[in-house]
């Protein structure tokens, strides 16, 4: 792209529907040209946020800025957004090409030109042969691509997708994730995808925005979200996590379930002496038959599940059940030691 894409900035955004609060105090910056995923459980406000960015809802408070331009009061048809709806919202009375060319037709682009552009876009989404078909003749995956081509037809400043892959079956969905990401790279357009599927968000996005309880919980690159969740909600929503009670003992030490464990310097945010919840990823924990020299918890294997690539072992430690994924080698009923890693212990304010 010749011109740099402007950043999208959201400031103090709030939305109420009558007495219900749908969004509360959302601040966010989406860098121009990046792919951002809004992820969260249903009802967390992510779709409302996307609809406000598109101009389909009016916020009760706050601002939406694209570069220096304040979009907050700009109606949807003057916003320069392309959107893929959850239902795809393709027009059943038009052909595929007419659907893709709809925005150009509204702008008064001559028929020959707009149909040529539609063909170009259909080739971009790898559907060059369906331009004269009716929407009803297409499969779900094809409709999804047509909806994307249509949203991109006007080369909008923002490409917004509301649960674009949720209606597709698992295999097709995985393929489309890769394809969508490659398409976005090629076009270079600032893209926001709303999804409830955290795995989808982690594999596609430059930046993940975890939403919960009508606010933004954490913003960061996928790995950072995964490795350093900043609160219990994010730690629990993204991936699998083990939670144990703990206490901050020193600048580099935690007490976890009664055992003192040292942690990498600088990793502890909560104040000295405070009660915390310690989150540990299943792959950070290691199982030992004998007590290791480092900090470890003793427990009993209660369940083993061989997933092929890894073995998931569930170990009962005091009143907690820990999930450990690794090479396995233990059977139900075995007494084992669970080694606590120095990195990978995340202390969260409880």
């Amino acid at each position, binding site marked *: 792209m010749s011109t740099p894409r402007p950043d999208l900035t959201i400031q103090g955004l709030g939305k109420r529907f009558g007495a219900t609060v749908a969004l509360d105090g959302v601040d966010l910056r989406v860098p121009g040209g990046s792919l951002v995923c809004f992820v969260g459980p249903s009802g967390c406000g992510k779709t409302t946020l996307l609809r406000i960015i*598109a*101009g*389909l809802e009016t916020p009760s408070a706050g601002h939406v800025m694209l570069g220096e331009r304040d979009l907050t009061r700009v*109606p*949807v*048809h*003057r*916003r320069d*957004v*392309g*959107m893929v*709806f*959850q*239902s795809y*919202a*393709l*027009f*059943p*009375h*038009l052909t595929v090409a*007419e659907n893709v060319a*709809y*925005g150009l*037709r*509204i*702008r*008064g682009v*001559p*028929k020959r030109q707009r149909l040529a552009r539609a063909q170009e876009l259909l080739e971009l989404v790898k559907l060059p042969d369906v331009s004269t078909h*009716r929407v*009803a*003749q297409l499969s779900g995956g094809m409709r999804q691509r047509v909806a994307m081509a*249509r*949203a991109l*037809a*006007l080369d909008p400043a923002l490409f*917004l997708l509301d649960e674009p892959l949720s209606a597709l079956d698992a295999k097709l969905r995985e393929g489309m994730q890769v394809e969508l990401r490659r398409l976005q790279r090629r076009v270079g357009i600032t893209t926001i995808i709303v999804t409830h599927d955290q795995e989808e968000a982690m594999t596609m996005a430059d930046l993940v925005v975890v939403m919960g309880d009508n606010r933004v919980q954490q913003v960061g690159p996928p790995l950072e979200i995964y490795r350093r969740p900043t609160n219990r909600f994010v730690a629990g929503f993204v991936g699998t996590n083990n939670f144990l009670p703990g206490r901050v003992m020193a600048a580099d030490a935690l007490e976890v379930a009664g055992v003192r464990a040292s942690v990498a310097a600088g990793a502890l945010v909560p104040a000295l002496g405070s009660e915390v919840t310690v989150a540990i990823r299943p792959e950070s924990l290691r199982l030992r038959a004998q007590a290791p020299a480092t900090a470890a918890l003793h427990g009993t294997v209660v369940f083993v599940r061989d997933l092929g690539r890894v073995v998931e072992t569930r170990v009962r430690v005091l009143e907690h059940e820990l999930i450990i994924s690794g090479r396995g080698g233990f059977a139900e009923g075995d007494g084992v030691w669970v080694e606590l890693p120095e990195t990978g212990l995340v202390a969260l304010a409880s």
Partner: protein
Amino acid sequence: MSVPVAPSVERRRRARDDGGPWPHLLLAWPTLALTLLFLIPLGTIAALGFFRRIQAGFFEVGFVTSNYARALDGFHLERLAVSVLLALAATLITLLVAVPFAYLLTRRPRRAQVPYLVLVLASLSLSEVIVAFAWSLMLSRTSGISNVLVMAGLMEAPASWSPGLWAVVLAFVFVALPLAILSLYPTFSRLDQELPEAAGTMGAAPLVGFVTVVLPLVRRAVAATAALVFIFVLGAYVIPQTLGRPAHWTIPVHITDQAIMKNHLPLAAALAIVLLVVSSLIAVAIVAIGAGRFDPSRSPRLAAPERAR
């Protein structure tokens, strides 16, 4: 365009044939009712049109064509034209109000729709007679709306707006409106809210989106409603008689006049048959236009915005 048939539809089709004698018996009742209550009276009336009138009496069985000839004479053809034009005008105005109303109503949350639907249903329960007399009061000089406007300082002196052409059209629209709204409501309710929204994201202002996306998708329902309203309004006779001058008297008014005042039942019957044929033809034409069968080009909608520019 062949549409692939889902297995469930196929199964249902087969089930329809395997239902035993019950479906036929159930269908027999409406068939019987239709025959007894519609076809036989219709045949009687069609035949009555050929009977001979007896002056100062009733009629006798016979075969004369003079009644139909008179029903198609210059005077009655002119009346027919007035009737059709009045009904078409009322239909058009009704749709211009009902279509946006039904659309905006169905965009509201369910709960918010209820009071409006109750009001619409309530006004549907008013008979044509009550509507005609209510409007003749409201449009009168002595006790009508103009008195309120004078009191509000918007008019110099009270005026009489009835009888008159617009009084007739107004009352027609008033009785037809609830019917039209309820006839459009189911189709508009099923319309995907995201379709006009999608049009908006592609630069279509609300009205442009409505014309290019919503209207093409509901045109069949709109045409069916137009046919319904047209037939309904064309059959009304109390409204033109009460609120119109003789120049606005429609064929139904003359049918009543012939049948009740002038005791000329064979002519009334002939007029009724002529009216039935003409209104059926126009109604069928309206529905056919709605289904896109008379489209000059295959997709005129695509060209429309360009012409506007």
